[in-house]
């Protein structure tokens, strides 16, 4: 019954090469499932379509920098206040990646439609005036509102084949607790056919059962649980540690060129095991631990 797997086994078993649609969880510099992303790079799994949350960051840029992504569906790839995403930018400007230009509403509602088996999802009136739908006729179309007769912009459902997600804790059956902000990670889990979960910590089910209402991913949606404390580094892991501006700065400066990102990958991803990576990051992770406060994990419901 246990879904605990090593990082390499999880990716080997559940991510086919040239996966049709791979979703990466987390948002901006937070809760990026970087251990799983790095393992995808190590195993050189190519990706037909990469889907980000409304705001992708290193989780997308690293895969693009590794040359693994044919097409990306996103409403943002960047490093927020730290700057643009160098590999995404370079690939788009060079025409070496296809972009399905999306907006936040479509990504969120599209995942809802994917999770719920809805054939498509209408989008609020007003969204049709931006140029986004004009350049993405794969994701956007129009149909008739049968109640008013008006034409309405709609989006296609998003049903990722595989989602890579981070959670704070999970039990070995995949019941997971998201700490801090949830972003659209739960929706991604609901919409995706296969869910790989990296967690800071595996805990007994009794621990999860202490706060059932806050437990946001039920184990029956999860295929594999990988325990990688520190696995979001250099992005933040809500409830555990903040993002690492030093390492992100290093990435951003090296990734300014194709050669540079190659060197970064060799030094920090393909040339090292995940254990070696985390060993090296451990002094920084210790500095970046969040200060004291109440538990980041909700506690509620009934005992027993």
């Amino acid at each position: 019954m246990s879904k605990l797997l090593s990082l390499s086994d999880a990716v080997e078993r559940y991510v086919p090469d040239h996966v049709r649609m791979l979703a990466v969880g987390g948002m901006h510099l937070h809760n990026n499932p970087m251990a799983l992303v790095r393992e995808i790079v190590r195993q050189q799994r190519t990706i037909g379509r990469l889907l980000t949350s409304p705001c992708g960051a290193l989780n997308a840029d690293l895969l693009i920098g590794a040359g693994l992504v044919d097409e990306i569906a996103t409403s943002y790839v960047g490093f927020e206040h730290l700057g643009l995403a160098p590999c995404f930018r370079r690939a788009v400007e060079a025409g070496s990646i296809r972009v399905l230009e999306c907006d936040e509403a479509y990504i969120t509602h599209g995942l809802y439609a994917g999770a719920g088996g809805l054939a498509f999802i209408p989008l609020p009136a007003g969204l049709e005036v931006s140029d986004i739908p004009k350049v993405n006729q794969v994701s956007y179309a129009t149909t008739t509102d049968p109640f008013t007769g008006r034409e309405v912009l709609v989006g296609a459902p998003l049903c990722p084949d595989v989602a890579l997600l981070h959670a704070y804790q999970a039990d070995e059956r995949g019941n997971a607790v998201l700490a801090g902000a949830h972003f659209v990670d739960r929706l991604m889990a609901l919409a995706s056919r296969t869910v790989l979960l990296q967690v800071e910590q595996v805990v007994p089910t009794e621990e999860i059962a202490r706060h059932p209402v806050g437990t946001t991913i039920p184990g029956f949606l999860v295929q594999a649980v990988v325990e990688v404390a520190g696995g979001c580094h250099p992005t933040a892991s809500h409830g555990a540690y903040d993002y690492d501006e030093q390492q992100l700065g290093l990435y951003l400066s090296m990734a300014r060129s194709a050669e540079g990102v190659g060197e970064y990958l060799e030094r920090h991803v393909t040339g090292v095991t995940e254990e070696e990576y985390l060993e090296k990051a451990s002094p920084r992770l210790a500095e970046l631990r969040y200060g004291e406060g109440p538990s980041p994990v909700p506690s509620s419901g009934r005992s027993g």
Partner: protein
Amino acid sequence: MARGQAPFPARDGAGERAVTVAPEPSELAWSRSELMAVELAAHLRDDDVAVMGTASALPQAACRLAQLTHAPGLWYIAGGTCSVNPHLAPVVPSCCDFDLLRADTAIPLADVVLLEGRGDVLTVFFAGGLQIDAYGNCNLVAVGEWSRPSLRGPGTVGLPFLSRVGRVLIYTMSHTRRTFVERVDFLSGPGFLGGPAEWASAGLSGGGPALVVTPLCTMGFDPGSLRMRLVTVHPGVDIDEVRDATGFDLLVEDPVPVTAAPTPAQLSILRDLDSDGLLKGV
């Protein structure tokens, strides 16, 4: 949070582009970011519900300042964490920071997306762009041809909702001819579209752009032409400097008042909030 002195972020990837603003005049006891926060705060009302997105330290500080001065009833939502009324001690550079959850409440991101679509709940939306045009349209996607851009931006996130939600407050740290253009190359955040005719026929539910705050000046929109017009210039800035830095014909009605400088009380509040000094840089 010991993150060191992160420079104050420009909006959405614009950080990588040169900011051509002159160095902060040494005689000024406040930074331009602080002045901009005060300008944005002044526009917020006690009954507003404001929402902000990526890299939003400046609007966060503006909202908190407004709450602590004239608008105690203001609600504000930090997109990303979707915390409601974050306590901001200190201001953080990321809109998704765990520390933003020191807040009155927090709701799921999907709920904020719903409310942006509902349209009647959120009254203020902060926006920006790689390009901002004479009608207040914003572009966070691509400079040049979309299919093969000369500068690929990060993407639009929630800016298409500008057409639907309350008043739009635009801010940017980059007042240059590259940012302020006659017409955006790609419309990712709707302003007054192509002007009065197109705006009227679109029948949008949002109120459109209301304010543009830059390191040089504060601008609004002419009610007739719906084009950007100068409202005040910041202390020490010349009107010609603004004109030169603007890539379209900016409406100017003489005389143009000077933006009021932040008061000591406002600065004191801002600096209490901003103990990491995110707003000190520029």
